[in-house]
């Protein structure tokens, strides 16, 4: 949150004596970096900076930031250590990518002959995969009248789900509402299906057409 994106135009605007100071919270787009190098503008990374949009995370062992391989200071006097750090972070990135593609069980299904089966990689993959909580989208449409939003929100909260985002549009007497709901706090052993049934029933009771579906299906189809 609150990250500032530095684009090509920003690079030129922010340049003072051919130098742009990049501080914490700024994300420099790859195009902007190319543009800067074309224009001879130097990017200087200030305290706690984030080097670029393809940021390499902090080295877990040394606590040093992973070096930007393309930057001019990729190899300092401690070039060897920096290189090891890079190798470690790359290994970490690969493990993370695999974990994202797989899931807890698939990770456990790594065959014994695979190099990934050694050194507890499967365990760490499983841990990484368990992170993302499930979310649902609740979409309600219908003729506007008092009590629709109240019926939906109270039904959602009765299930123990947490509303993270709401968007509402009114056209004449028709309304459309989209809720993004976190399901990680669903109460009383409720499953996704129970949640869907309850909220859809509550919406219908209030005279709205309600559809509840899992966030992942939307992500799968629309996000690359």
């Amino acid at each position, binding site marked *: 949150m609150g990250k500032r994106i530095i684009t090509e135009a920003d690079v030129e605007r922010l340049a003072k004596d051919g130098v742009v100071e990049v501080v914490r919270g700024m994300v420099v787009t790859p195009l902007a970096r190319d543009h800067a190098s074309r224009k001879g503008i130097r990017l200087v990374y200030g305290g706690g900076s984030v080097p670029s949009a393809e940021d390499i995370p902090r080295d877990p062992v040394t606590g040093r930031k992973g070096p930007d391989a393309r930057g001019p200071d990729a190899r300092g006097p401690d070039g060897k250590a920096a290189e090891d750090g890079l190798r470690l972070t790359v290994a970490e990135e690969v493990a993370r990518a695999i974990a994202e593609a797989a899931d807890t069980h698939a990770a456990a299904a790594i*065959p014994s002959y695979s190099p990934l089966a050694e050194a507890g990689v499967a365990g760490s993959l499983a841990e990484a995969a368990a992170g993302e909580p499930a979310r649902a989208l609740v979409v309600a449409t219908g003729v506007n009248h008092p009590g629709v939003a109240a019926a939906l929100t109270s039904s959602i909260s009765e299930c123990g789900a947490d509303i993270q985002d709401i968007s509402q549009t009114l056209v004449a007497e028709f309304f459309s509402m*989209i809720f993004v709901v976190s399901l990680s706090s669903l109460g009383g052993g409720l499953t996704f299906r129970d949640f869907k049934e309850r909220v859809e029933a509550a919406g219908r009771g209030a005279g709205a057409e309600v559809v509840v579906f899992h966030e992942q299906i939307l992500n799968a189809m629309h996000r690359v």
Partner: protein
Amino acid sequence: MLYSPNEVRETIRMVEGEHLDIRTVTMGICMLGCPAKDPETVAKYVFERVVSLARDLKSAAAEVEQTYGVPIVNKRVSVTPMSLVLEGAPPESYIAAAESMERAAVEVGIDYIAGYSALVHKGATPGDATLMRLLPRVLGGTTRVCASLNLASSRAGINMEAVALMGRVILDVAEAKEHGAGCARLVVFANAPEDNPFIAGAMHGVGEPEVVVNVGVSGPGVVLAALERQRRLEPRVDFTSIAETVKRMAFKITRAGELIGREVVARLGPPSRFGVVDLSLAPTPARGDSVANIIEAMGIERAGAHGTTAALYLLTDAVKKGGVMASSSVGGLSGAFVPVSEDAGMVDATRLGAMTLDKLEAMTSICSVGLDMVAVPGDTPAETIAAIIADEMAIGVANHKTTAVRIIPVPGAKAGDTVDLGGLLGELIVMDVKRFDVSSFVRLGGRIPAPITGLRN
């Protein structure tokens, strides 16, 4: 807002209104560990292995269906080609294996189990020959077991002796059940893929891991709706823009398919692993879920008219391009399906005389399975059926692609008759075959050599 209203609306529309479904989730199971070849051991091993591994397939699929709201139409199982498991076994073991597959399918609650198969593209072993000769008995005595044969490959050529034998076997299988229904569970291939999730040609190839889950996506309904919407909303539609629309829809369908497959695998747990997404557009007899209708939406009055092959090419190519962008695990047949009886639009086109056997053969150069669910008169000579198969095999071998024949000689039926097989198999309209004699060609024997393009090393 985390999501744009357009994305949300489109997701709802595809899932709720346009038949976005997963056509099949098929679990492939390796059977090579069978410890002995006597009938009792084979029967016990096959049954216990399928039941222990696929017991939760249905419930896992149902849970995923409910969570994501995307129906999974079929849950099925494929096994290692039985000829490889049983080579050297007495004929009773082949029967025992098939009966055991049938019982296991009933036990785990699935409608079809595939893999009563043999790979004979270069030549048949005694075991392969036994398996082929027993097909009428096996398919006549079961209702869920599916059989397939690989008769040709681009590396080996076409095994014409096996082709000739299968002409005879298919007629015998047809006699074994009412309306020749047993033939709906028998496919002959050129270049059969090892990871195809679609029944009846599914098998668990020898290069596969122990247990895999392959997904066959569907979605003719979604593609059709998108094309119709494009026609309505865009002032000018040309071929490039149609290809673009199909590609986009294929991308979304494939992403959904991969998500569903991985979620099913997650619920099944080890040793199941995710295999491939098969990008085939597979129709169902439901209205609007038809590949023929997509061809017609491009401006061809009836599927089968001149121009159909070009339209099918555009469609199939765009589906592949969209799908391959969406998933790195693409496999199986991955081409459009045109099973005549399972596609309401194809049935209509056949009834009106637009779709004929010859046109289907031409379309084989594009789609994945050529003559699929095609009915011919029951008095068609075995040699003619073998020659029809040989033509299809030649297209596959010469073009390095999978082609297949699932042909049903309906006993007692004449060209133009209608036969209803019910359910997913749909309605058959018997097509005419040419009555000229080809028997001395088919009986030449031997093997048609592989094409020069097969020598790539």
